[in-house]
């Protein structure tokens, strides 16, 4: 009985099956992720396009309604604007808002209110100290209730007597 000769036997490489399967698994996962993200992107696109179409439809309806009302502008529209300002901001309200901005030694000499598309104010104020008038003017310019503040002629003779024009915005958005 002869003994087998192992010295001449070639070592055969066993194919690495697990490495190939790992590669297949990764590729499969990549494909699944790609398909899943494509489905997500499609779903997002459909949702946004639906929202866009609905919003454009609503905007169109609202714009037509607004244009329709605007086209009826005339004396009624002006009167409606004045009615709204009269109801929202009658003289006591405008005066109260003005008074909150006035330092103690500033007083109102005359006040004119013109009601239209907005309320135009014409004020004449007197202050014992020029600094008080300056402070009032700064407050008026910084107040969210008033806009287009235009200082007019002012007489500085120790105290101040000055005219100011402005528009009242009230608590409107």
């Amino acid at each position, binding site marked *: 009985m002869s003994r087998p000769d192992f010295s001449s036997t070639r070592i055969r490489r066993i194919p690495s099956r697990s490495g*190939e*399967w790992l*590669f*297949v698994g*990764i*590729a*499969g996962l*990549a*494909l699944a*992720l*790609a*398909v899943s*993200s*494509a489905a997500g*992107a*499609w779903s*997002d*696109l459909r949702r*946004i*396009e639906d*929202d*866009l179409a609905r*919003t*454009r439809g*609503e*905007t169109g309806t*609202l*714009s037509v*309604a*607004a244009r329709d*009302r*605007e086209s009826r502008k005339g*004396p*009624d*529209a002006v*009167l*409606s*604007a*004045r*009615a*709204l*300002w*009269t*109801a*929202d901001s*009658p*003289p*006591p*309200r405008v*005066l109260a808002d003005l008074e909150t901005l006035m330092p103690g030694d500033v*007083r*109102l*000499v*005359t*006040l*004119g*209110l*013109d*009601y239209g598309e907005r309320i135009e104010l014409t004020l004449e104020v007197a202050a014992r100290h020029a600094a008080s008038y300056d402070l009032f003017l700064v407050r008026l310019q910084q107040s969210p209730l008033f806009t287009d503040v235009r200082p007019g002629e002012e007489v500085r003779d120790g105290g101040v007597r000055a005219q100011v024009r402005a528009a009242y915005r009230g608590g409107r*958005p």
Partner: protein
Amino acid sequence: MKHRVAAVLMLALAGLVYAGMTARWQRRAALAADAYRAARHERREAQLRLAQMQRRESALRRASPVRTAAPGAPADPVGATRQGIVASLQGAGVSGVRLAVRPGTPPAAAEVQLTLEGPFKDVVHLSGELVRPGTGVVLDRFHLSAHDARVAMTLKGTGLQALP
């Protein structure tokens, strides 16, 4: 070998799906999202415009005088406007009253001019009472001037027709 080929094919397919579908749809979604934001802004603007006009129309309706079926109540808008103002003046503590109520040009039913004087507090309070909703008077111009402890007020307004 077959496994490797299959894996390569799947990777290639994944790349194609991403480049050809996902990325394209994401770009379209981003553009649509921009357009959606702009459309929402336009819708908000249109809503504000409409709401403003509706508020004005509603204010005009609220300002219109309430119809009274009381005996002796004047049927004509000029008389009704005048009577409403006179009623507000009673007990108001003011003096030097000059009132003119004339027929107005449509849509105004009447034109109102009122001048008076009195203590600041009373005059300011009265100015609010004269134009509160339901009186039928809408302001056009208001002028106040101080004379010592008293103030003089001039009010110009529009008298509205009563709504049915």
